């Protein structure tokens, strides 16, 4: 599952033999269950700091489950998940968030009982280096116009932007995004791509789940293909045609 050559982070820092960087993610032989249903099988995956990795696979392949396992929402697991030097497998979501992992769920999770500004300010600032509100509004100007609207009065695209915006305040540099472009118009998808590219240029690490392969191809460094709860392949996106052929093989695109 891992490249055999010496891997370097985008900043050029050499990595240790397990492929983990002090602030990257390393999942080893992860098994996961929902009650008695065995949903993840020996999943191994690493994400280097500054990298953009996309989990792809058919519906039910275990992509969302993997993200939930990382953020601590999947309780029944076996195997190791390390973030930097910390073993986060037994931690709850709160502790994992405090270590610097942010989560943008598939359903976006915008609160109906909070207005836009409250939604934005809800996640507490956990470390230095997060964006200021001014910076966030510069990135998402249309949110600034809707501050007093209740969360769910926003359109799907606005909610998605809000869901991304609010975690940028926290200072967390490792963001999990579950299908950020699902159901959105091309114009909004473009906006989200620009946002994610911007984050990448700032050194953020992104682990995405995406069904929109065109979108994924435009931003990801690497793919990780999941099938029925197992990692079947990982490959990089340096050669777009080659990558596309690989994807077609697995997903009959």
């Amino acid at each position, binding site marked *: 599952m891992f490249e055999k050559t010496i891997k370097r982070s985008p900043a050029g820092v050499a990595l240790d033999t397990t492929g983990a960087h002090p602030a990257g993610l390393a999942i080893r032989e992860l098994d996961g269950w929902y009650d008695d249903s065995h949903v993840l099988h020996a999943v191994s995956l690493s994400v280097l700091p500054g990298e953009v990795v996309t989990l792809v696979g058919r519906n039910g392949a275990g992509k969302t489950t993997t993200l939930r396992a990382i*953020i*601590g*929402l999947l309780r029944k697991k076996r195997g190791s998940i390390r973030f930097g030097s910390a073993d986060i497998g037994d931690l709850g979501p709160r502790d994992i*968030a405090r270590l610097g992992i942010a989560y943008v769920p598939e359903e976006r999770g915008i609160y109906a009982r*909070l207005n836009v500004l*409250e939604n934005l*300010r*809800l996640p507490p600032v*956990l470390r230095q280096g997060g964006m200021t509100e001014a910076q966030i509004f510069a990135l998402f100007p249309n949110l600034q116009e809707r501050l007093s609207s209740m969360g769910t009065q926003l359109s799907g695209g606005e909610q998605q932007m809000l869901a991304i915006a609010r975690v940028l305040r*926290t200072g967390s540099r490792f963001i999990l995004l579950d299908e950020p472009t699902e159901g959105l118009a091309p114009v909004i998808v473009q906006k989200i791509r620009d946002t994610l590219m911007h984050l990448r240029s700032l050194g953020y690490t992104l682990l995405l789940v995406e069904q929109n392969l065109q979108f994924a191809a435009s931003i990801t460094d690497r793919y990780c293909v999941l099938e029925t709860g197992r990692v079947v392949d990982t490959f990089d996106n340096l050669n777009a045609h080659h990558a596309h052929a690989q994807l077609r093989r697995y997903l009959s695109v």
Partner: protein
Amino acid sequence: MSELFGVPMTALAGQLMLGIINGAFYAILSLGLAVVFGLLNVINFAHGAQYMLGALVAWALLNSWGISYWWSLLLAPMAVGAIGLVLEKFLIARVAYDHRYGMLVTYGLALIAQGLVRDHFGAAGLPYSVPEALRGGVDLGFVFAPYYRVWVVAASLTLCVLTYLCIEKTPLGANLRAATENGALAECFGINVKLLSTLTYGAAVALAAFAGVLAAPMYSVNPVMGADLIIVVFAVVVIGGMGSLSGAVVAGLGLGIAEGLTKTFYPPASNIVIFIIMAVVLTLRPAGLFGRDKG
């Protein structure tokens, strides 16, 4: 005119005032119940007992240490609220995943509180006099309004409004609303939902205890003063629903007034009128008057 449907205006106004007072208590208690249920998924059966303990602490403070009513308004909620914090952390949090268990455990707590108080203080009521500053009243012509009752209405409604504002308009309230709506996601942001739950329960208990202190000079302090009250409050939250805080307050006030009116015009039905209204609401609008409920 001095009569309405054969009832003198003074009697009507007097009962209406009592109705508003009862309504204010229903409002405070159903507010506390609704907030706790929303966040902790627990029906706090002990809420009535905690109201009783507030009154009891006020009585004890006065009789043992001569501490005045005004200090009791601050100290009793703090004391009973502190007990609430401990109860939530070590007991209630353990059963919060099933609302029925929560109801059973808090029922047990209510029995324990009632039993202990009855054992120690007896079943008869303990008297608590109206504080000096609020004795007497004002003659409005058609009704004599005792200062103390006016104070109780003003204080409880103010408290309801303050609680509502705190929850709906402050960042802390935003945390509470978010945790109530989707606590798992709130945890993913780093919010300590468990601590929030503990503090919220303590605050709701303090709220009930405050109402108890308000009640002490009006009703004698006895072990079961909260028991029958909590059952009526249950009917109030069934009618108003627990999804809407303003709904809980409006329902509480409205039903208190309805009770007062019934007491004026048809006294035999006054202690069951709220249950009758509940039956009617269940027949016509099962989801409760203000909707937003889950089940």
